C-alpha cells in the first residue's frame, strides 16, 4: 500500500512545485516507485521542473473523465526510471477534475506505487479541495515570512476541517543572514504559531532557479545546500532520524574553529 501525500501551502510562490519535484526525484532515487500528480490545472509547471514537457501526450482531465487509463497518461522520467508524472491539462481549469475523481485515480494507482505526491495549486478554492481529497497526509510548505506563515496557518485549519490530521511542515527559502538580523522569522517564531511537526528547513539557493530552468531538480546537485536539505526531507519521510542542516554561512573563522575542533 502506498502513501498519498499532498504538497500544499495556501500562498503561491513558496515552492510547492519545487518541493514536489525534488521529493519525487529523491524518493525515486532511493528505489521507490513514485508518481507525481500535478493538480494545478491551467497553470501546470511540474512538467517543466522535471524537464518532461515535450513528452506529454494525455493529461489528468483525460484520465478523470475516463477517456483513457491512468497508465497511458503517465510520463516516465528520462533519468529516474521509477519516477512518473501524471501531468494536468493546461487548457482546462480547476473545475475539470473533482475530488472524487482524484480519489478514484489514486486508489487505482496505489497498488502500483510506493509514493504518490500531489502538487496542489495555491489558494483554498476548488483546486485545493480537489487536491487534498485523496491525500493520506499533507506537507505544508511555507517561507519565513509573515504572509506565508499566516496562509500556512489557514491551510492547516482547512486541512483539519477536511479531517486531514497528519500534517508535516517544510520551511522553504530560508535566508539565514536575514533570520540572524531579525528581518525574517526564525524557526521558533514559525513553530510557535503553526505548532506542527517540521520535517524540513530548506535554504534559499540560487541553484534552485538554475535547476528549475534546466528541468533537473536541485536534489541531484550535490553541491547545493538546498539539494542536501531536500535529501534530508526525503530521508525523514522514509522514517530516518536526520538532524537539520546548519544553514548559517560559515565565516573563515568558523571554518578554522571547525578544523581545530574548538
Amino acid at each position, binding site marked *: 500500500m502506498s502513501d498519498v501525500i499532498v504538497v500544499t501551502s495556501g500562498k503561491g510562490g513558496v515552492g510547492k512545485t519545487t518541493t514536489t519535484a525534488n521529493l519525487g526525484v529523491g524518493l525515486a532515487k532511493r528505489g521507490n516507485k513514485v508518481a507525481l500528480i500535478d493538480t494545478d490545472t491551467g497553470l501546470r509547471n511540474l512538467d517543466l521542473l522535471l524537464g518532461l514537457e515535450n513528452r506529454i501526450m494525455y493529461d489528468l482531465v483525460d484520465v478523470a473523465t475516463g477517456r483513457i487509463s491512468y497508465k497511458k497518461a503517465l510520463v516516465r522520467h528520462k533519468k529516474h526510471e521509477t519516477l512518473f508524472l501524471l501531468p494536468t491539462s493546461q487548457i482546462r481549469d480547476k473545475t475539470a477534475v473533482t475530488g472524487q475523481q482524484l480519489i478514484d485515480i489514486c486508489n487505482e494507482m496505489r497498488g502500483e506505487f510506493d509514493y504518490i505526491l500531489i502538487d496542489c495549486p495555491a489558494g483554498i478554492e476548488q483546486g485545493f479541495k480537489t487536491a487534498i481529497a485523496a491525500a493520506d497526509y499533507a506537507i505544508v510548505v511555507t517561507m519565513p515570512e509573515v504572509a506565508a506563515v499566516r496562509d500556512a*496557518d*489557514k491551510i492547516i485549519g482547512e486541512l483539519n*476541517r477536511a479531517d486531514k490530521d497528519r500534517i508535516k511542515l517544510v520551511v522553504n527559502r530560508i535566508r539565514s543572514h536575514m533570520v540572524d538580523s531579525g528581518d525574517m522569522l526564525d524557526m521558533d517564531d514559525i513553530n510557535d504559531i503553526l505548532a506542527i511537526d517540521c520535517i524540513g528547513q530548506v535554504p534559499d539557493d540560487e541553484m534552485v532557479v538554475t535547476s528549475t530552468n534546466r528541468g533537473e531538480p536541485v536534489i541531484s546537485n550535490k553541491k547545493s545546500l538546498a539539494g542536501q536539505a531536500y535529501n534530508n526531507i526525503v530521508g525523514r519521510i522514509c522514517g530516518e532520524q536526520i538532524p537539520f542542516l546548519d544553514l548559517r554561512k560559515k565565516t573563515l573563522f568558523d571554518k578554522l574553529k571547525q578544523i581545530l575542533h574548538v
Partner: protein
Amino acid sequence: MSEEVVFKGSRSGLKLILTNTVDFPTIENLIRQKLDSSFNFFQEGTVIQLEAGWLNKAQKQSVRGIFSSYGLILQDGYEEKAEPLKVSLESVDRTQAHESEDKDRKLKTTVINQTIRNGQEVISDGSIIINGNVNPGASIIAGGNIEVRGACRGIVHAGAFGDVNATVTAEYLIPMQIRVADLVARAPDKRMSKADAPYPEKAYVSKGKIVLEAINR
C-alpha cells in the same frame, strides 16, 4: 437596491426587516434574490429575527420556508419578543466545541481544546475558554468573558452583546484587537511577540477605555 427587504445586524443578532410597500409575492422574490446574491455569506444554521408585524401567519410561514431551504432559521421577532434574548448566534465554531448543557446564558461556557487558526472563528453567546493559542487572523466572539490559556494573537471580542463588564484574559495577551462591548483597542503598529507580554494579562473596561492589567495565576 430594494428597501423592502433589509438585513440588519444588531446586538441581538441578525434581523430581517420587511416593509409593506409592495405586495407579498414581490417580497418573496426579493428575499430569494438577496439570499442568492449573498450565498455563502450566511452560515448554515444562522438564526435571523423577522421584523414584519404586518405579515399574516401563512405569509410568515412561507417566508420561513424560504429561509429553511437556504439552511437558515427565521424567528419571529414579534412572537418571541417576550422571551429574554434567545440565542441569536449559535456557537457556530467549525471546531469541536464542548458545550456545557446549561442553557442559562450567563452560565454557559464553551471550552475548546485546540488552537484556533487563521480564518477560524468561535462564536458563543456565553463565555469562551480556549485551551490553546488564538492565531493571527482568527477571531473569538463571546457574549461573556474570553479566556485563552495560551498565546492570544487574533481578534477577541468579549461582551459582544453589550456587556461592558466582560474581560479577556490570556497567558500571552498580544492580540490584533481587543473588543469589549462596543469599545475597541488595537495592537501597536510594531509587531508584537511573546516577549512583549511576559506575564498573563487581563483586559477590561475602566472609565470608558480598555485597559490591560497583569494578573497572578
